[in-house]
């Protein structure tokens, strides 16, 4: 149904060309929002939407942008989109907006956005840019969810706020790993994900 190039654009970032574990972009927010699964999920969705939209907009105006100020133009587009999304959330989904609080604003500084705009949207048409944005956003979301899953499960014994490790285990001496709540563990976990990912992909290459 989809051509090979389209497939690569959309699905490549999910695995072989993942923005977090291969391009090492967006690490900063991956550390901040992965203590629990819920903010990680919402952040993943928000970034996906904003990357896709800003990719399309920049791609549409790419031929008119003066080269010397292109980064500023990209930044204005991203900042305007993020502000719009946060205003709309505050009006129609106040609870979600409160949950995301500063992270929503931090999307502006997420390197994946600028990276994709500069590397892809500036030289490709709008449809491909949309797919590239969706792919990269989802690739980012997957890593966030993996890291948040491990951190919330081991750090608080919960998933999405529900207790999953039974009281029985605590009665027999099991304890939550407080280290998992620290940002440093997120970095180590991202490192582990990169390790697993590399060793799997190297095998395929051989």
């Amino acid at each position, binding site marked *: 149904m989809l051509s090979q190039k389209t497939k690569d654009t959309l699905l490549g970032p999910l695995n072989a060309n993942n923005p977090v574990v291969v391009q090492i972009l967006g690490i900063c927010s991956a550390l901040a*929002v992965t*203590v*629990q699964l819920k*903010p990680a999920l919402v952040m993943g969705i928000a970034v996906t939407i904003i990357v896709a939209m800003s990719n399309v907009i920049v791609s549409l105006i790419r*031929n*008119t*942008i*003066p*080269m*010397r*100020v292109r980064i*500023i*133009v990209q930044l*204005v587009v991203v900042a*305007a989109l993020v*502000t*719009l999304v946060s*205003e*709309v959330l*505050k*009006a*129609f989904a*106040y609870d979600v907006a*409160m949950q995301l*609080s*500063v992270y929503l604003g931090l999307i502006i500084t997420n390197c994946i956005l600028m990276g994709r705009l500069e590397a892809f949207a500036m030289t490709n048409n709008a449809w491909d840019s949309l797919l590239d944005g969706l792919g990269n956003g989802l690739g980012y979301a997957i890593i966030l969810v993996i890291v948040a899953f491990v*951190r*919330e499960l081991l*750090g*608080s014994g919960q998933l999405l706020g529900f207790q999953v490790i039974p009281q029985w285990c605590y009665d027999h001496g099991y304890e939550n790993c*407080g280290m998992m*709540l620290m940002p440093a563990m997120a970095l180590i976990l991202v490192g582990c994900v990169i390790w697993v990912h590399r060793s799997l992909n190297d095998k395929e290459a051989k």
Partner: protein
Amino acid sequence: MKLNTNSNIYTFVYMTVVVIIVAVLLAVVSQALAPKQQANILLDKQKQILGALKVDFSQADPAEVYYTLVQDTLNYGKQEVYVANLNGAVKYILPLSGKGLWGGIGGYLALDEDKNTIYGVNFNHESETPGLGAKIVEPEFRSQFEGKHIRNAEGAVVSVAVLKAGKHAEGQEQVDAISGATITSSGVSTMLEVNLTEYAEFLNELNEGKEEDHVESED
């Protein structure tokens, strides 16, 4: 004719147009959504006050529940105190605000009619760490405050301390801090202390103002 997109004039005009478009767009959206956002903020505040009063509003319209319970607002300079009538008992709700680790924290403290016993408390925060400082909003932490006294034996307002397990406060009551969230916990402690001093005028008019309050809350 092809435009030279690298000329200074083009760049200047282009940026001006882009910025004007974005500014107008954001201003229009912000204006259009402002009433809805204000309504959300008000509703959120009412829900938080109901939370401090430990009222279950899941089965009803929170705003309606709020207006039947909270019937009066007392003003003390900049400070506002909400007076609620909960099953015949008068409760005072004091808004709080302070600083956490990453940003502001706030909350509502519901006091019994004696202006001493804490009936309930509700906290909120802007950006505390999920799983650590953000736990101040959870019932496990908040319920510790219930029944504590903000005055010492002599009747002076001394607040309630938030301390790590094992530490003891001299001359005031205390609750357990959240482990791993030292700065947020002490932020809550400081917030209570500072805010209660600011409510001195309200807290000290111990019996004089009470009859008046009764009349007002029965209206």
